[in-house]
């Protein structure tokens, strides 16, 4: 039963990941990416890492993918299709990647894994929380700072500079009105 579920999830992950890479339409690729994230979250649930699974869905599906979709929609004015990747020498990349996969899989098969017989702790989320607050307090805080920096950085990078923006009609009117006000102030 669990094997069947695992195979189903694994094939979903691989199929959607492949579609992410080969989809020509970028929004389709993004939607397949969301499917991949979701399936990976399901795999975490199957591995009994509920917290990570739910966090995966919350962060990836709920936040990152929305961010991606927003970015696509803000940049899709001119090209809905990116140039076909088949145009380039993609077979070199494919050969290299297949070689890497072969090396990795042989290694995985060759390593004698020391599987554990320990039972899983019953309550895992509090354990995780305690670990974050004790052993990993510094990385935790650093992660918070990284997030803050990323937030501010993203805002600063993506923010449209006012003077570089093409003036709109409203801007023109505001400018004219400002000039008129200044002229009025000068006369009395």
């Amino acid at each position, binding site marked *: 039963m669990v094997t069947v579920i695992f195979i189903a999830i694994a094939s979903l992950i691989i199929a959607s990941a492949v579609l992410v890479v080969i989809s020509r339409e*970028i929004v389709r690729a993004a939607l397949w990416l969301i499917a991949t994230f979701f399936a990976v979250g399901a795999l975490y649930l199957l591995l009994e890492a509920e917290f990570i699974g739910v966090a995966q869905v919350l962060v990836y599906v709920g936040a990152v993918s929305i961010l991606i979709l927003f970015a696509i929609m803000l*940049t899709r004015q001119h090209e809905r299709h990116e140039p076909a990747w088949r145009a380039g020498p993609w077979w070199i990349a494919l050969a290299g990647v297949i070689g890497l996969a072969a090396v990795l899989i042989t290694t995985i098969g060759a390593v004698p894994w020391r599987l554990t017989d320990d039972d899983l702790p019953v309550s895992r989320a509090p354990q995780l929380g305690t670990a974050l607050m004790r052993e990993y307090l510094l990385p935790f805080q650093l992660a918070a700072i990284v997030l803050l920096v*990323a937030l501010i950085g993203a805002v600063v*990078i993506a923010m449209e500079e006012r003077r570089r923006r093409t003036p709109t009609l409203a801007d023109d009117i505001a400018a004219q009105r400002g000039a008129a006000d200044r002229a009025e102030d000068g006369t009395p």
Partner: protein
Amino acid sequence: MSMIDAVPLSWVLTLAAILFCIGLFGVIVRRSLIGVLFGVELMLNAVNINLIAFWRYLEPNLVAGQVFALFIITIAAAEAAVGLAMVIAVYRTRRTIVADDMRNLQG
């Protein structure tokens, strides 16, 4: 029945390896910046699967596997935010998000 009895660890690791390779392939062949970002996200997910699998199969009492996965998710979110902001900034100045078109630094 839990997963460690039914599915060998090597299967999970193989899945992660394949996912990683697919992501790498995407990073190499994709032309648009957003597509490249997709590949990076796939690779990060593959790494996370590895971490969780090791935690579950090898050291279930050591919480480090989950903590690391959590940090990677955090970093991935930050990376996505900054990366997409850069994509938007690039798009605004160059009206394109195709990586091949950005060859200002080429001789």
